[in-house]
């Protein structure tokens, strides 16, 4: 091998997962995480529009929002918040395992994150079932009974709700529309996240991500934490509007 050939080979030495249009691995990693953050910013704007709609209607029909919020279960809501925060922690540990090239540990944390995501969706479906049974899903079958006549609803009695005038009671339908819109879009993001996690578990089993190329795990982690942050805001805005009145 001639000297010039050796030189070319030395200059060309880079990991097999480095794309050729990047000058260095550092540049590739920075560019990828930059792109991921740009995507997350579009997601912030997407959820931001719904949050703004929520804030406007909450300001206009506050008593309806308080009564609607009292219909949500503190137990399920707080439990689900803890489940999601725990899943964020296990995901962060998954990224660490990939960086440390610990394959078994990475698999363990990915599976744990997957299971916690499924538990979150399970609890969410229990809550949705309660809303369907009480006719609190906006539409033709929506019932204002719990708000016009709270004495007939044990949940409203426990919260100490006073009867709302009919026009204000009807605005609880706006609260529940926003509740289903926000939690529904959040749940859709969870379903997408859990699906990608399942794919990652199979790939990780085959030895991916623990060979030094952690970009996919790292950026999926960003997505998962972002979905967690959305819930961190949904929890106080939907469940905790006013528990004291």
């Amino acid at each position: 091998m001639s000297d010039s050939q050796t030189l070319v080979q030395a200059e060309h030495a880079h990991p097999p997962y480095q794309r050729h249009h990047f000058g260095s691995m550092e540049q590739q990693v920075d560019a990828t995480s930059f792109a991921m953050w740009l995507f997350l910013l579009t997601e912030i704007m997407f959820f931001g529009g719904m949050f703004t709609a929520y804030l406007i209607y909450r300001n206009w029909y506050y008593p309806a929002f308080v009564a609607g919020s009292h219909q949500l279960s503190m137990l399920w809501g707080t439990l689900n918040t803890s489940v999601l925060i725990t899943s964020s922690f296990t995901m962060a540990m998954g990224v660490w395992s990939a960086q440390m090239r610990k394959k078994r540990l990475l698999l363990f944390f990915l599976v744990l994150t997957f299971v916690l995501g499924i538990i979150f969706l399970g609890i969410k479906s229990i809550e949705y079932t309660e809303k369907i049974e009480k006719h609190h899903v906006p539409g033709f079958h929506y019932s204002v009974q719990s708000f016009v006549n709270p004495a007939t609803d044990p949940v409203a009695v426990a919260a100490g709700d006073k009867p709302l005038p009919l026009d204000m009671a009807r605005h609880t339908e706006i609260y529940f529309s926003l509740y289903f819109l926000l939690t529904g879009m959040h749940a859709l993001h969870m379903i997408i996240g859990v699906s990608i996690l399942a794919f990652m578990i199979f790939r990780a089993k085959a030895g991916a991500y623990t060979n030094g190329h952690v970009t996919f795990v790292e950026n999926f982690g960003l997505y998962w934490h972002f979905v967690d942050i959305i819930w961190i805001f949904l929890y106080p805005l939907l469940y905790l509007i006013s528990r004291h009145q």
Partner: protein
Amino acid sequence: MSEHNEQLVHDEATEGHIVSPKVYVAIFLTLLFFTGLTAAASYIEMGPFNAIVALAIAVTKATLVVLFFMHIKYSPKLTKLTVGSGIFMFLVLVAMTLSDYFTRAWGRW
């Protein structure tokens, strides 16, 4: 492939800054503490401050997640600037929209 990798163990540029699990555990426990705190705070009558306290705790939790779980504290300046300007832009849009809606009826009653 494996020959390459052995030379590249824990390459900072390739694998990013590695955050210690101790930091993750500390952040995790803080987040759980704030969840309990915000739930408890909603049962105390504070007038308009209930909403402010709830949002302040949510913003604190989100900041912790962004800084540590999402590694922004250890990211290059470009990423920090992207996140900062994006959130700033979002706040401008929300503030402008709300200032419109909340003041439409001023002077009409």
